[in-house]
């Protein structure tokens, strides 16, 4: 009897923790490069993200090859020449929401948050900080953020012939709808 109670207790503790985590496999990460010569946009609808609502820890992972471009050749060049997807298949963000205590996960609403952490892309890790918004609606949480990255910071070499076509700063937009992670 005692053992059963203990096991039950244990299970309760575990499930209690599980509800603190939210995730998605279909997060949208897009980027936009704008120059007078050309605008380039790419979308990825297969980003994975996990948020720990208790600690504020927030992680993203994205396969570079699943970025879709309007022009097939751009997509090929993006993977082959710029981010070198076969060498560095994934880009990962590991960070946290600094003001997680301001977010009431039991109450619907929009909560402005400050996110900081490390982004690893093309084998280079950089510290980033960005404002974002968490929108709680029932069981689901929408996370949105817009920030800028510079290809140069990640050792992505841009040859002089296409220098005019690729912006120095590229705008990255993150939109991910997270749901409770049940184990």
């Amino acid at each position, binding site marked *: 009897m005692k053992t059963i109670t203990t096991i039950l*207790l244990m299970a309760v503790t575990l499930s209690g923790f599980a509800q603190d985590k939210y995730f998605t*496999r279909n997060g949208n990460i897009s980027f936009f490069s704008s120059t007078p010569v050309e605008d380039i946009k790419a979308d990825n609808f297969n980003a994975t993200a996990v948020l720990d609502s208790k600690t504020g820890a927030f*992680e993203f992972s994205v396969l570079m090859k699943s970025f879709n471009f309007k022009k097939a*050749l751009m997509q090929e060049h993006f993977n082959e020449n710029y981010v070198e997807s076969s060498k560095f298949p994934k880009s*990962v963000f590991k960070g946290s929401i600094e003001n997680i205590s301001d977010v009431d996960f039991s109450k619907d609403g929009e909560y402005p948050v400050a996110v900081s952490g490390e982004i690893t892309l093309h084998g280079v890790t950089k510290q980033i900080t960005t404002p974002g918004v968490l929108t709680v609606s029932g069981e689901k949480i929408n996370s949105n953020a817009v920030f800028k990255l510079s290809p140069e910071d990640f050792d992505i070499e841009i040859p002089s012939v296409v220098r005019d076509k690729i912006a120095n700063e590229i705008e990255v937009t993150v939109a991910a709808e997270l749901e409770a992670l049940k184990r």
Partner: protein
Amino acid sequence: MTKILFAFLLFFFPFFLLAQDEGSSLLDLIEEEETTNYASASFKSTHIINSQSIENVSEGVLDFRISHRFGTLNSGINNLYGLDQATIRIGFDYGITDRLMIGFGRSSVQKALDGSVKFKALRQSSGKKVMPITLSLYASIASNMLEWADAERENYFTSRLTYTYQVLLGRKFSEGTSLMLMPTMVHRNLVENTSVKNDVYIIGIGGRQKLTNRLAITGEYYYVIPDQIADIYHNSLSVGIDIETGGHVFQLQFTNSIGMIDKSFMTETTGQWGNGDIHFGFNISRVFTLKDRNKKPKEN
């Protein structure tokens, strides 16, 4: 006492488990979905040099190719080692789908018109679906548009035509290395005399080795199985480099073939490397995206 301690430990056991999670990644909590990873960009272009590669242009993309072959290197300084003489082919390839491509071209050699179709039947992939090779089926038709050699004779239009059928087998062995094997049959409706064959069987091999992301060396060789074509014709060997700059691919090459269409370089190559009958040449490929791809997010 021990029992209480035991229960206590058991109760806290999940906490220890979670505590262990802290160090590793949150992302480890969810299983990674296995995806199929298709090999891409095995070659920079739809052609290795003269030969087809396993690459197609994507859906809605038009590839405009201008190819030049100069005279032979052994033609002397008086002809600037061949540069005084030039032959040209202008060609267009268009992707109906990502896997089906059609092409059309015109050459100065024999004033030939040519049309082709290439279908990618199998795609090399790893991950969820594993396929070790890419296999494409290719067919082309060429029409010699020169004046009839003997106008007195009764001439049929079909006599102008030559067909080429190929199975293009290729594998991208590593990021930089791709190789191809190309069993080929050329059918010529009209041949010079009865001692040569209408159906000619040929084996082609080709490959590319990347030097940098934008520079690669390429090569191709077509071996005609003996006793099928006239003795004046030799096997075609070409070596070159591919230089890629944005929407252009420049291919510079040395070859013993002057013709740039299938039947010409495969069965009508008169030059020999050993004699210095080597032509310098280049292909310029420029792609135009005629149709934007509207990829929708994958439904889950």
